[in-house]
Structure formats: C-alpha cells, structure tokens
C-alpha cells in the first residue's frame, strides 16, 4: 500500500514529477473503480480519471494535506462522471441516483441508507482486493487476473500451459486468501 508522506506532498505541491507519479500510483485505482461503477464503461472511466488527475496537477500548489488531496480527487471524479452521464442522457429520462448524498437526484427517502454506505465501501473493497491480487505469487496472480478477465478455467489452463486441476487449485487458494481478508468477526 503506497502512502503519501508529508515530504511527498510538499514535493508534489512544488511540481515534482516523481511525486506526481506517486500520487498517481496511490489513487488511480480507487478513483477508476469509483468512476467505473458510475459509468460502466472502461474508456469513459479512464478519461474521467485522467481529467481528475490533470486537474489535480494543475492545482497542485493549492493542495493542503493528503486528506484534502484524496477528497478533492474523489469529488472531482464523482462530478466529472455525473457530467458525462448527464450529457449522455440529454434527451431522455432523468438520471437515477447512483449514490445518495447531498447531490442525490432522488429524494433521500427513496434511496436506501445502506445503498449509500455500500457505494462508499465498494471502492475501497475493490482497491484492497486488487492490491491483494497484485501481491499474490505469480501463478496464482495470473490465474486470478485471467479469471477477472472472464476467462474460463479451460481457457486459463490452455494459455498458461498447465493442467485444469492446477488452475482449480490456484483459484481455490486465491479465494481462500481473499476470504481471509473479508472475514468479519
């Protein structure tokens, strides 16, 4: 888990490119997941993320602290995504509230409290999972990545040149690892 330190932030505010890369590495997955959940389109989500990061870079000298940085990125990502949705649905019906908070387009009563909590937690969950997968042993990681790309066990076995039983074992172990993280006592 990459963490932005105070001196990283200071360097970032002064325009240091390495610091920018670090900020990118820290945040781009989270906000991509956030944007993707709203837009359901890979390219649109990528574009929104790039715009949010560029705006952050452009205004780097105004960023106060890491909490500010994160919340600024999230707010930008959310509003840019909503902008995209509004432009897409221009001539048809209204946009249903994707997440309920002060910007909800539905009355509060209509959006379940748990839906809102869900939206907020989802992004972190996804990020944590992807991070965990990134840390897995190479074979196991490869199996997981191909599974996430909707490949079948047979296809995976073929492309990795291993037996199907092997793929199942990797899958089982990977799920066990993930289940371990998700357990709530």
């Amino acid at each position: 888990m990459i963490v932005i330190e105070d001196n990283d932030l200071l360097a970032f505010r002064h325009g240091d490119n390495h610091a920018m890369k670090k900020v990118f590495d820290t945040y781009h997955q989270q906000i991509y997941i956030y944007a993707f959940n709203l837009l359901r389109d890979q390219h649109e989500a990528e574009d929104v993320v790039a715009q949010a990061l560029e705006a952050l870079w452009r205004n780097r000298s105004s960023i106060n602290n890491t909490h500010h940085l994160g919340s600024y990125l999230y707010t930008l990502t959310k509003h840019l995504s909503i902008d995209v949705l509004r432009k897409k649905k221009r001539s048809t019906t209204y946009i249903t509230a994707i997440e309920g908070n002060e910007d909800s387009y539905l009355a509060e009563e209509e959006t379940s409290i748990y839906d809102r909590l869900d939206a907020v937690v989802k992004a972190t969950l996804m990020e944590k999972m992807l991070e965990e997968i990134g840390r897995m042993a190479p074979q196991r990681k490869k199996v997981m990545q191909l599974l996430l790309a909707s490949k079948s066990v047979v296809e995976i076995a073929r492309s990795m040149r291993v037996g199907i039983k092997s793929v199942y074992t990797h899958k089982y172990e990977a799920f066990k690892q993930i289940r371990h993280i998700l357990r709530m006592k």
Partner: protein
Amino acid sequence: MINNSTIARIAQLITKYLRNEISAKEKEELEKWINASPNNRSFIVERMKPERVMRELEQVGLIDTEAIWQKVQKLIQPHSVLRIRTIYAVTVAATIALVVVKIVITISTPKTPLAVHSPVEVNCPQIILDDGRVINLDSMNIGDGIVCNGWWMTKTSSYHIAYYPHTDLNGKSHKKHKEVNQLSLPHGMIWSISLPDGSNVQLNAGSSLSYDITPLGERSHGTKMLLEGEAFFDIRHDATAPCSISTSKGTIVVLGTRFDVRNYRADSALIVSLLTGSIVISNGLKKVELKPGQQANIKKRNDSIHVGVDADTALTRSWTFPYFDFTHKNIIQVMKQFEKWYGLESTVYRGSVDTLTPGLLGGGHVSRELSLMELVQTLQQDDLGFSLKGNKFIVSQITRAVLSRHQLIYNRE
C-alpha cells in the same frame, strides 16, 4: 438511526479494517454498530461475501494502468504530441487565450460586496468574493480554484463548487474571521455548493446566495446566509451552531436539516418547505416552528405566517432534478417552467387553452440540458404544435386541416 455522518464514520472504519489500520477501540466501535441492528449485520455479511466481491471485481475488470497514465500525460503535456509547426500556432493561441482570460477576471473593478437584497441580474454564473473580485464561473476550468483568505474555492464540475481550507506552501493559513462570498446565477442553470462544514446548497436559476465561509468552516457560533430566489438547503446538523437564512420577507433558523426556500422578487410570497428535521421561521415579529412535510407562507403585504401541509414534497424538490417534471401540471404551468428556464418572455396560445392537453410531453420528463431548438423538437405532438417566434413560445392546437400546413411551416424553419 443512520444519517450522513454515521455513513461516513462506518465507511471509514471498514476502510481502516480492510487496510489493517484499525485500532482496538475503533474495532470495538465498528462491532458495536454491526450488532446494533439486524439490518446492520446483514448489510455487512452481504457486503463482504467473497462471491459478490469477486463478481464486482470481474465487472470492473483489469485496470489498464498504463493506458490511464498515458491519458494523464497527454492532458498534462499535450504539445509533445503535435508537430513543430502546429506547436507554434497552439502555443501562441494558448498564450493569447491565457492573457484574455486573465484580463476578463481582473478587469471588474473591486466593488463592495452586494447585499443580496438588491436585485442581481447576471448573464453568467458568478461569485463575488469578500474583497469585491467578481469571478466568472464559466471561464474557469473544471478543477481550477481561487484562493481567498485561507479558503480555496474550486469548480469541481460544470455546476458545482466546493470550499477547502487552504494553507500556502509554508503551511500558513491566511484565514480572516469573515469571508463573505455571493453566488449569483442567470436563468437556465442550477449550481450546487459544498460548504466546508459538510452542508450543501442547490441554488436555482435567477437566484443569489450570500454566505460567510469562515464561520461555516468552523460552525462555532452560528452562521448566516442571505437568499434571493430559490435554494434547497441540506445543512449539516450541529446543535451548538444554528444556521440562519435571511430573505426579504422572513428568516429561517435551522440546526441541521433539509428544506427548500423560495423567495423570488416576482413571487407574491416567501415559501419554505421542510423535508426533514425542524426549522424556525420568523417574519421579524412572530416565530413559527415547522415540522417535516409542512410548508410556511409569508405574503408580501400581509406579514402573517401561514403554515400548511406541503402536499407533494417531490414536486417541491423537482426543480433540483436535471429534468422538467410535468406530472400534475396543466399546459400553462408547463410552459411557465420553460419560459423561466430559457429566459423567454411569454407563451402565445392558439386554440382554447383548456382544450390543449400536455399529453405525455417527452414522457413526462424532459431533460433540462436540452437547447431551446432541441426542446421545441422534442415537444411536438400530433395534436399540439410548438414553435418559437422572437422571444416567445407559440403553442397551437392542431386540427387535421391545419396539420399539413403546420408541418410545412415547421419544416421551413
């Protein structure tokens, strides 16, 4: 009872748990919440189901980090992608544009911040800062901001601004105890403001809102706002720091709740509609407390406060939605909405008005984002013709004989 701050807190605790950053005390707090109700428990159980998480992960797919980095680079350094000759032209144009924009922003001579009670007719969304600078919000790029006395005001989307506390590069804050900003909107747009205390205000077209940022940021001893026009308030709850909204006809005091205030100069009364919580309305002489679902009325000449039931809270809020709502409205009410939004003078009706039915205009919902021409096209019905003449709408009843002539006229436009 769950509210916004609970959601934020629980989400934060879950995040910390997932990142193994949770303290023993925080873990206890989270477990307490989980066990507080069966709904909480089932939410957590469902949310953390591995199969569900995997399914969602699959939907997200793999994140193309390299592609996103390339896109970021392209936006940050666009010139590196162009040929040398084009670079020169683009650089020159960009420099000129930069200079022009700079002039536009600073050329407005500083004036004293307007008291919002004076009429503010603007033709672009603007913010007047405490020092008198007038900022044209249209000329700002998304993500850009202005620093004003320890606050950073940033445009986060085409219709939204947010405030963050600001320190300079040495970590010093230059906050003044008073920083009054005024947001004014022309017709045809709704903006929302995220205030530093977590409150949110949606401002309707043709309205103005004045607010003092520093007290709002600290919410230490109450804060004041001035409104002309219409706004929907979602004020964060703070029992120790009431928030008051003043209008020309009356004042509303709240501790934290959601309500709509409508007081346009053209209106015959101030109307306040309460959705949740409780608010106190005063006209300077009397005070009345409102309960959720109630609506208060203060007329112009007669100063008494009338309290009634808001029969349709969804309707009260419908202006905050990105579409026009035609349910329960007759044709005149529908056209008035359009007149107001597009800044047109009036509507001319051909054919007797009560025989004209709105029908299912656009399916009952028409997007506010449509241009005037797109709107006219969307509205056309078999029995109802819509067109524009100068600064007016024309709505005509179409009989069979007229139909072909109307179509001919329409096609010619």
